[in-house]
């Protein structure tokens, strides 16, 4: 007796699959966070150790001016050449020249690779955005430890 040949192929029911994908899309669209928010981390000194006990590390002090200019001053560094220890950068239309700052910071990092700390001293009228832009430039230049000097 000859057996009837069975079909090995079968039809995949796509409707539940489409349903599942639709539910997934709806859920993900509702729960999606469209604004990508991050944080710029700053470590502030809050006291506890005296200045004499604190280990001396090369530190870059950044003094902001009202016109967007700034002065970079390296302290506690033996390797930094005298020409780079104090450097002034003029502001451009009331804003800091971030490109020039980055070039200067990279030069300083080449001279003193241990330079990882920067302390920013803004003016009362300095905008928050300007401070964050500066911090971003310092992070780009490889300075991980940042601080803001209170008024």
């Amino acid at each position, binding site marked *: 007796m000859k057996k009837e040949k069975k*079909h090995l*192929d*079968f*039809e995949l029911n*796509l409707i539940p*699959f*489409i349903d599942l*994908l*639709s539910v*997934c*899309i709806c859920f*993900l*669209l509702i*729960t*999606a*966070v469209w*604004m*990508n*928010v*991050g*944080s*710029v*981390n*700053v*470590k*502030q*000194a*809050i006291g506890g150790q005296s200045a004499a006990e604190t280990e001396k590390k090369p530190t870059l002090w950044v003094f902001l001016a009202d016109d967007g200019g700034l002065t970079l001053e390296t302290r506690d560094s033996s390797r930094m050449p005298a020409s780079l220890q104090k450097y002034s950068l003029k502001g451009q239309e009331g804003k800091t020249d971030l490109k020039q700052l980055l070039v200067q910071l990279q030069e300083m990092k080449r001279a003193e690779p241990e330079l990882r700390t920067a302390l920013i001293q*803004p*003016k*009362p*009228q*300095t*905008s*928050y*955005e300007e*401070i*964050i*832009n500066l*911090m*971003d430039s310092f*992070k*780009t230049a490889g300075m991980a430890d940042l601080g*803001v000097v*209170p*008024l």
Partner: protein
Amino acid sequence: MLNQSVLKMTSLQSPLLAASALKPKQNVWKKGLAADLLLTALIDAFSILVIFLLMSFSSTGEILFINKGMELPKASRAEVLDRNPVVKIDEGKIYLEDKLLTAETLISELLDIRKKFSIDRPGEEFRGIVTVQADRRIKYEFLNQIILACAHAGFSDLRFAVTMK
């Protein structure tokens, strides 16, 4: 009635149906105006959408509630934001977790958080992290009050909320 519907009369035979192994209906293509929906292309589009949305999915959810008028500064070297006490500066007012405060009362509230932490988790080191959410246009003289209050209360780690570039 259903068999006489316009769609039934005018639609093309589905390629899936035509290729079906159980009920093969090859060579029964009808000429018509409307083409049947191509399910393969639809599933492809859905799958791409699901993959894209899954990649951009954030399990942490909304940590910060940003009001309509507030614009966060932008930064390219920002780190991932964690859940910490949030100090918000909005329209010249200071809020700690949506509670309206002044610079003086902020110190006592932050000290309360610190005290509560030492009661809840005895022996654990207090990390002193606070997230600062402020508009990009505010001046440093205002932000200075927050920095000083945090320093007074022993919160040394400040996380300035930014929008990623």
